[in-house]
């Protein structure tokens, strides 16, 4: 099958990539566009670290053929990170020691971003439900839950 051009909006900018059929969004982000904040974990939809937002919804980029998101809006961790300083969710993760090895963090932060966008004041149960698909092996989740609650407070008072 020949390669074809796929156009989509990435972090506010229109991009075009030349891809073989079924090339995943994860591969396009990391290997074609060199945006490596989106991590590559299990590559079978089991760990959540590759999560990005597609039209505001968290999606597993390792399972997503890039043709499927043609013309749509994709936001990665790079897209929410300001040029200087950190996004309030990132700052809350930093301040609450919610990052150890950091491998799960990009995916968890994107899931929390999507959650807080539609539900600015979630309960702890709602946060747990949101991040249930994200594997964290270091923190025991407790600092991540605290960070998410802290991020909600910061964004509401901003």
């Amino acid at each position: 099958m020949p390669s074809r051009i796929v156009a989509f909006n990435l972090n506010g900018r229109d991009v075009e990539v030349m891809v073989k059929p079924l090339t995943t969004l994860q591969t396009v982000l990391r290997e074609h566009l060199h945006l490596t904040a989106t991590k590559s974990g299990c590559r079978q939809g089991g760990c959540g670290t590759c999560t990005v937002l597609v039209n505001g919804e968290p999606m597993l980029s390792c399972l997503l053929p890039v043709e499927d998101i043609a013309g749509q809006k994709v936001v990665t961790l790079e897209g929410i990170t300001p040029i200087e300083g950190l996004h309030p969710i990132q700052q809350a993760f930093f301040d609450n020691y919610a990052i150890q090895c950091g491998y799960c963090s990009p995916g968890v932060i994107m899931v929390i971003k999507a959650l807080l966008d539609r539900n600015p004041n979630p309960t702890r149960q709602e946060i747990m439900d949101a991040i249930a698909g994200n594997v964290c092996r270091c923190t025991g989740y407790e600092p991540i839950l605290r960070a998410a609650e802290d991020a909600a407070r910061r964004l509401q008072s901003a």
Partner: protein
Amino acid sequence: MAKLRGTGIAAVNYPTGMNLGGDPSQALIHATTTGTFVISLSSTDLGQGLKTVIAQIGAETLGVPFENVLIDTADTDTGPHCMGTFASRATHRVGNAVIMAAKEARKAMLEVAAEELEVSPDDLDTDGKGNIFVKGSPERKIDITSLALAAHFKYGRTISGRGMYIKPKSPVDPETGKMDPDSTEAHACVVAEVEVDTETGEVTVISLKSAYEVGRQVNPALVHGQIVGGAFMGMSHALYETTAPYYPSPDHAPGSFSEYIIPGPHELPHIESVVLEYPSVNGPYGVKGVGEMTANAPIPAIVNAVSNAIGVRLTEYPITPEKILRALEKSPKVKQLAENRS
């Protein structure tokens, strides 16, 4: 059927570093032209916060602000040797090496400052805020950036230091078995509270409460992070993790990461911990080490709690629902419950 509650307890004595010793680590420190102290190591930060605590130890010994210290662990091929980040040894071993290197670098720093301020190095001290001053007259001082520039471009000197730490390998007496296995030991005790569903065999860990004695805490927030993360990891080993679960045939075993069962945020128990600090005699600033041990004691504590809940001793983990249901067939408590019902 019923939900049975139980409590279990377990303790751990954790020896820091390699058994019998013989595991060295080295450190090199040099100041850049603008007064950043680069500590070169081959000791990898796995997320436990090694870079942070080593920068704290280096800054404390050098007498410079934490922000002036940069930890470089870029390449284990070219960096000073380190045996590795394992056995909770890094803060203890590498910290000691860094103290030795930092003392030499501090001496070089004070010698340059002595020339600039025209006093003896013995008359100088650091304020920890980036200045070196003359004892008794703090207005006579030089900041470390000016000092590093002067060392490089005026005096042609390096501000650097070499450090290493090794606990010499202990011989084992072939007759008596006598040996010196460890350099220091940290201690902990964990109490687990669980609930067992006798219908499904599922275990819910309600709480993990612990006391840790880990020597001096260089960074209490990072110690707490290790304890909470380790408690969760221990729970995961006690209840879930195996590549060979008790299933009818090997086809049912996990074949990939997606099928390998580990707990998620919903399984998070209430975790509570207190830390006691009895400084060690040979650790940097009294450090012992806390890492691996945090995942140790929760395992037997949880297994003991489940045994306590169902009245049957369990000797193999992970205690999956299959194992618990089989054990329940022998449980006097369950028999009693069934008799009461009929």
